[in-house]
């Protein structure tokens, strides 16, 4: 329906479109449900697990010694902002699979879990083939705590809540199950181009 007297603000033409319902933002807003945790890299580690079995475990030094992958991508947050041309560095999930000797994905779905109790669910295939990182640098600098640093999951083709901040591990599962926001009615998959914000979208 038309909104009387609404024309939208003339914005500088974006070099490429943003997903439906999104607007382009220069800054880098923050969405989290609680205080920003302070993660100590001296005791931090990352675990891949399935059925209670540890498939791979890396501390900070071990993570940093794996080959780094760079991504130049656009970000889309469910709170309506998108940000173009951001640079991220981290280790791809493919490289972590290789390092752990995982050849077949241990389950079709993943629950990512974080310091502070955050969780989010994703299909395993959305993490593979260069689509996702365990990221530790943004714009050439160590990732700031408010943006999920020192280490976050990074899956930029989905809404940003799927890129779990302060990541501590991936738990592989046979069946999909809702994570933190998903249990509050946010979408199980979260494709910004299909505007999958909430259940039923």
């Amino acid at each position, binding site marked *: 329906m038309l909104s009387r*007297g609404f024309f939208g603000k003339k914005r500088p033409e974006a070099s490429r479109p943003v997903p439906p319902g999104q607007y382009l933002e220069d800054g880098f*807003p*923050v969405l*989290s449900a*609680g205080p920003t945790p302070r993660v100590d890299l001296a005791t931090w580690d990352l675990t891949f697990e399935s059925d209670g079995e540890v498939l791979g475990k890396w501390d900070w030094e071990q993570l940093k010694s794996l080959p780094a992958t760079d991504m130049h991508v656009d970000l889309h947050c469910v709170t309506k902002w998108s940000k173009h041309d951001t640079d991220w560095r981290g280790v791809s999930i493919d490289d972590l699979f290789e390092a752990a000797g995982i050849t077949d994905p241990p389950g079709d779905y993943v629950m990512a879990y974080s310091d502070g109790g955050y969780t989010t669910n994703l299909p395993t295939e959305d993490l593979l083939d260069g689509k996702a990182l365990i990221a530790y640098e943004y714009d050439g600098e160590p990732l700031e705590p408010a943006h999920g640093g020192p280490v976050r999951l990074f899956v930029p083709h989905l809404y940003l809540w799927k890129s779990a901040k302060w990541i501590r591990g991936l738990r592989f599962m046979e069946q999909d199950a809702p994570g933190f926001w998903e249990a509050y009615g946010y979408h199980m998959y979260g494709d910004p181009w299909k505007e999958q914000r909430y259940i039923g979208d």
Partner: protein
Amino acid sequence: MTTGWQIATVEAVKTETDRAKTFVLSAPGISRFRPGQHIDIRLTAPDGYQAQRSYSIASPPEDSGVLEVTVELIEDGEVSPYFHEVVRAGDQFEIRGPIGGPFTWQSTEGGPLLLIAGGSGIVPLMSMLRHRSASSAFNIPVLLLYSSRSLDDVIYREELESMAAQDDHLQVDFTLTRQRPDGWSGYERRVDDEMLGEVIEKLGAPRLSYVCGPTAFVESVASALVERGLEADSIRTERFGPSGT
């Protein structure tokens, strides 16, 4: 959570401050919400362009059939100036909701409750306070610490003052960061650790804390509360915008 878009009609517009207006919406299709939740609003221009933004619900769930949102004017913004300059009673637009995760409080959750607002961050906290009154949960101790630029920028000031005056278990502390009237006896600086220590002392150890406002405000207050020893999972946050006050 309701997900489809539905039509809301503006029943009335109230001027709260020079930079904040309240819109009373009738939205019969919106299911019962919890204080702290928000709605999404979608506007459509003649060329098909659409803009969506989130606005917290200011009214309590006990008000049936209507809900209120309060919009602060961001001068160079797209949607908030439209609300301030164009929207009037009788207008309609699309909304969906209620939406929101853990940033909600109902009187059944009890207290003591520490509420900390920066600027328009008061809006969802006001829904909680109005709900506490509407559900007669006056025995739940609450302290609201509310940071504004000046006294004229304090949204819902009269209602907050009269709520606190009639209620032994509700304390309201204002801090004014830019301008103070003569004889001002409240705080006159940004919320800092010392101020948080003082209000927690007055309230008693909070069981739940809610912090809402601009991102930088929420970051600094929530971190200070954690450093004071409050459990991280007892602190719930809502970050409204990219910039600080």
